[in-house]
């Protein structure tokens, strides 16, 4: 045990003097994550809020044939832009394709007559479905034109002495059950991704340096000739890797705890709880993930023949724990006891819960900790076996 600690302490000291370790463990993960995150967050928030009730101007070709429609749109914050110089659908198509316009409304010159004769008047919307940035504005224009159409229909039915509800057999009531915390957690769900990434980055260099790097520096042979079992040596090294991963995680959480209050979450009417207690709880939830990641990276590094080879493999390996997160966000899974058996996914779900200010279930937490540590133990065993091979000397 004292030998494991000796190795661990030495690797911590040794790597504290290595610029690459310090860069990846204390700067790259902890700072880059929160900065990137705050940036993305603010961009998506400003998009979401700006689209909701902001005044927009849309070119309306043939506005002169549909004065009432234009007035109706204007009352809903959609103004007819002036001087767009568009005169036909072809020109409108070109303008939208070029990106000069996001959406163009085209009113037929027979609009007034068709409306009066109740023949069905045509309004054409020209837009680009693949342009996701304009999606909300197009939706607003389409919704408003639809609302105008319904208003006229209602008036016509009333004029004929009919109850408008005759043609509306179904009434859809939208009832959004998401709480403010839940809405913000959609975006904050990305947080776990950055936390896991920073944790792995913190140990990436150590996992390589203490194994493949040691062999390349030729210090492995004298080390193996000391009266310390190889399992103690590799366990000490994994311990040091874990320590740096936890350092990186702690710094990242601290950065997030500082950065999140500055994010404009209130603009969305959302609240989010990321106080020091949440950060500390998140640290404890992610704690078992560090030895797992250390064992995973050390196993891979022990398997390779050189520092470079180890680095290139590990570039892929650190993506593996993020795969369950991507799947989870696509499938929008809810926490369940079975999913807690998947390391990285379980931490993701638990931390998302934490951010939603929902209570953590003890059973889920227990399964998450147990399975993560178990897989970590299996991988550590694999690392011990690989380190025990004669071929480790190269």
């Amino acid at each position, binding site marked *: 045990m004292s*030998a494991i600690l*000796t*190795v661990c302490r*030495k690797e911590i*000291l*040794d*790597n504290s*003097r*290595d610029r690459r370790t310090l860069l990846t463990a204390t700067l790259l993960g902890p700072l880059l994550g929160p900065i990137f995150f705050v940036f993305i967050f603010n961009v998506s928030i400003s998009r979401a809020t700006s689209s909701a009730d902001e005044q927009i101007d849309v070119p309306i070709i043939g506005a002169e044939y549909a004065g009432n429609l234009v007035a109706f749109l204007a009352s809903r914050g959609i103004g007819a832009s002036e001087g767009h110089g568009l005169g036909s659908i072809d020109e409108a198509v070109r303008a939208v394709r070029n990106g000069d316009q996001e959406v163009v409304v085209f009113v037929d010159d027979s609009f007034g007559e068709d409306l009066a004769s109740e023949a069905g008047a045509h309004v054409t919307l020209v837009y680009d479905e693949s342009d996701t940035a304009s999606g909300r504005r197009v939706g607003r224009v389409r919704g408003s034109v639809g609302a105008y159409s319904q208003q006229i229909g209602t008036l016509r039915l009333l004029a004929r002495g009919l109850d408008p509800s005759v043609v509306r057999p179904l009434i859809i009531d939208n009832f959004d059950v998401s709480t403010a915390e839940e809405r913000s957690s959609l975006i904050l769900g990305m947080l776990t991704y950055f936390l896991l990434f920073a944790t792995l980055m913190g140990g990436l260099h150590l996992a390589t340096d203490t194994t493949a790097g040691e062999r390349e*520096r*030729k*210090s*492995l*042979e*004298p*080390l*193996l*000739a*000391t*009266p*310390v*079992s190889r399992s103690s040596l590799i366990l000490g090294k994994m311990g040091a890797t874990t320590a740096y991963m936890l350092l990186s995680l702690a710094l990242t959480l601290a950065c997030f705890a500082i950065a999140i209050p500055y994010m404009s979450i209130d603009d969305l009417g959302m609240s989010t709880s990321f106080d020091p207690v949440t950060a500390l709880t998140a640290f404890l939830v992610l704690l078992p993930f560090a030895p797992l990641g250390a064992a995973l990276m050390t196993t891979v590094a022990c398997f390779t023949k050189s520092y470079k080879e180890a680095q290139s493999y590990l570039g892929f390996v650190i993506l593996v724990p993020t795969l369950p997160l991507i799947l989870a966000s696509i499938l929008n899974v809810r926490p369940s006891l079975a999913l807690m058996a998947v390391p990285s996914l379980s931490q993701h779900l638990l931390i998302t819960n934490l951010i939603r200010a929902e209570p953590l279930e003890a059973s889920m937490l227990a399964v998450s900790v147990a399975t993560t540590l178990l897989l970590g133990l299996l991988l550590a065993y694999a690392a011990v076996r690989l380190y025990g091979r*004669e071929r480790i*000397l190269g």
Partner: protein
Amino acid sequence: MIEVNSLSKVFGDVPALSDVSFRARDGVITGLLGPNGAGKSTCLRILSSVLRPSHGTASVGGIDVSGDPLAVRRIIGTLPHGAGLYPHLTAVENIRYFGLLCGVDRATLSKRIDRLVQRLDLGDVADRKAGGFSQGERTKVALARALVHEPPHLLLDEPTNGLDVMAVRQLRKWLQELARDGHCILISSHVMQEISALADDLVIIAHGRVAAKGTPEELADRFGNWDLEEIFVSAVGGEPS
């Protein structure tokens, strides 16, 4: 005392050592001499229990290297090819790490390191990081590291590699002192001059086999030549045509 009996080592299909037997006595320097790739390093690695023998046995201080490798490692000091120091650690930190791994307690360790630093004349570099050391400084620190737990046996793999004449002479002096103190020293080399000035016993290996062994005098008698280089060339089977 180091004893090697019919030792063989095969890497995959490639034999590195075949049926090698020799003895290294306490209090003398035994030279393991051979051309590059003869199997010297493999032999030393088996003795330091880093590699396992394929056949045959080897023992250090009466302990079988396969039977109880940890016990063997407690009584050997190794200086492998290329020293292998940690560049971010200072000379003293490098030495202390190995002392701790060998189970030397901290109080004793500090005293020993002070003594070694003095004896190996490492005062100037003791607290500098090893990354900037010259080859000579590296070898000295590596030697101090090998001696820190006061092992009775020393396994040195080409220790004079890259050293200048003065450093070689100094190293030779230390090794002779250590031998006088009763250490069993096994030193590998492909440089004849160095071995002739150092070794009391010689083991010449070539192609993984022992080609000749004995004191320099015995070998000279057998090969009818006092020049070690000539003995070496005859022993390994003549010059390549």
